[in-house]
């Protein structure tokens, strides 16, 4: 009987293990090897750290990374600030029969691809776009202004893209929040701020952390939104990787950047967990 169990386990695990090994591990190994090879002065490929050193020696590379990381943190914070009231409203304020409907409304935009959503924003915000048209019609603006192609619109797009990934974990933790705790707090004379900081946020911490990790990683690895909505000033680190592969034909440098992105973003998350005193094992549960 015991042997049977093992056999079954093995049978069902094989596809996953094969998938992990062939589709994820093997290509990454190839990239890792590639990232340690560089051309020497004679055009021969040799083992070297040059690709990694380039990142630290060339200011535009690490500056781009720093910019990308800082903006990703900002996007994560903004997404949290918007998502918390939304989730609280859905779980505790609105009548339960509507909460499913509201959830559906949140999900709906994610049924179309990110590209379509970004183009939707571009149609709204461009100089000859919908919003400008109405503002001029109503006499608020004399002539249309360009709202696309700056950092603010880029952040708007990124926050919009990652909203759902913050709302879903927050809803799942807030559902278990006992309303009587909040009532008791009011009875004892607490104001809204105290309730938020001492009851709601501590209770939803696991959801906040897992949502933040997902949003941060998605934003850091996003390519489309910064590129299309940020326009000329939006060099994102992923674009730098793309450029190394596609424009410069330097796959070695590109894979080194890829691994640096992986390592540095993991470090940032680790630092974030340490600073807020959270443990990953607790969050995953």
């Amino acid at each position: 009987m015991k042997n049977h169990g093992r056999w079954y386990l093995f049978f069902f695990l094989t596809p996953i293990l094969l998938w992990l090994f062939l589709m994820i591990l093997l290509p990454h190994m190839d990239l890792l090897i590639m990232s340690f090879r560089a051309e020497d002065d004679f055009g021969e490929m040799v083992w070297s750290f040059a690709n990694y050193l380039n990142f630290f020696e060339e200011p535009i590379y690490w500056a781009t990374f720093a910019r990308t990381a800082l903006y990703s943190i900002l996007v994560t914070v903004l997404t949290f600030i918007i998502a918390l009231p939304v989730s609280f409203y859905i779980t505790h304020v609105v009548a339960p029969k509507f909460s499913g409907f509201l959830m559906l409304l949140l999900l709906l935009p994610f049924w179309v691809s990110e590209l379509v959503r970004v183009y939707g924003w571009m149609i709204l915000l461009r100089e000859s776009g919908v919003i400008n048209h109405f503002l001029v019609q109503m006499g608020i603006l004399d002539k249309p202004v360009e709202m696309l192609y700056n950092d603010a619109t880029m952040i708007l797009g990124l926050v919009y893209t990652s909203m759902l990934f913050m709302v879903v974990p927050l809803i799942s933790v807030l559902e278990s929040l006992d309303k009587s705790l909040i009532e008791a707090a009011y009875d004892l004379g607490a104001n809204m701020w105290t309730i938020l900081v001492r009851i709601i946020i501590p209770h939803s911490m696991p959801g906040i952390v897992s949502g933040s990790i997902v949003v941060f990683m998605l934003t850091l690895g996003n390519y489309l939104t910064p590129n299309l909505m940020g326009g000329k000033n939006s060099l994102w680190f992923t674009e730098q990787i793309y450029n190394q592969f596609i424009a410069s034909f330097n796959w070695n440098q590109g894979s080194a950047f890829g691994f640096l992105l992986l390592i540095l973003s993991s470090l940032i998350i680790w630092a974030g967990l340490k600073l807020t005193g959270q443990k990953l094992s607790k969050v995953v549960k």
Partner: protein
Amino acid sequence: MKKAILVVLLISMFLIAGLGQASAETLELLTWKGYAPKVLVEKFEKETGITVKATFTNNEEMIAKLRATRGAGFDLAQPSQDRISSVQAKFKIYQPLDYSKITTSQIIPSMLDAVKKNTQVKGESHAVPFCWGTSGLIVNKKYAPEANDYSALFDKKYEGRVSYRLKRPTLIATAFSLGDDPFAKYGDVKAYKALMDQVQDTLVQGKPLVKNYWANGDALLQSMRSGEVYVAMAWDNGGWKLHRDNPEIDFVAPKSGALGWIDTFAIPAKAKNVEAAYKWINFMLRPENAAVFTNIEKCATASDGAIKLTDAAVRDNFERTFPKKDIDNINWYPPVPAKLESIEGKTMDKVKASK
């Protein structure tokens, strides 16, 4: 009884459908947007029974895709003629062409010879020309009547109304507008690097004037049409398409020379259906088909005699934009030697990162 007949009918239908699928030959085509017009794809399918599956991309991604698979996955690619020899020498992603399988009599001889010469690696040529055109300026004459050279892209008058791609043609054009000749420096890496540094300074200084660096040709045409952009660096056929709808917008051959490109047919090293690839090459270069392509895309082909079969309005585009002296003034891209790409890549990164 009725049920049985129905079942048999259904099964036979599935079988026929299955057979149809099995016998359908396909041609995996890696090409530019617009290079496989629907009418021609359908005509080709009727003629040969081969289904064309086109993937649209650009030069850089074409090379990257083929390099990733070492030349597999596609039966035919359409890189520009200047991007073949150095890439082939390094990554071996194409196979030498068998010119006896190509109806060379329907190709303009001088163009065929030039492409053969430019795509030669180890004594063997890797491409035939398909179509050609130029990069220059698309200008809205209502707002920018004086724009006649690349320097208009850096002119304060058009602040916020300028758009170009952040790709190598822009670097080359900027170098020409500085009065230099980048093609003459192709062989000298150091001199080229110095030139690119100058180009970088110009582009960084001109950055506040740029509305955006366009990446999608349709999106650019849209912003030209809506009057958001007055001066753009782009391909001639885009300008001509706009001219048809709005006579004030037109393609302008810059004073320092439009940049002439030739897009080719080249067969990837591990192509599965080589026969179909040759069939498509011969089909597309047949004058009547080439003329259909030119009418739709406003882009001239290497097909000998096709131009006579095109619409008068399309022919008129060439004559309006390129009087004799402007034709002679076109700077044709010579083959890009290795090493230049990484210099250019860094230049573009720095321009994009600058504030």
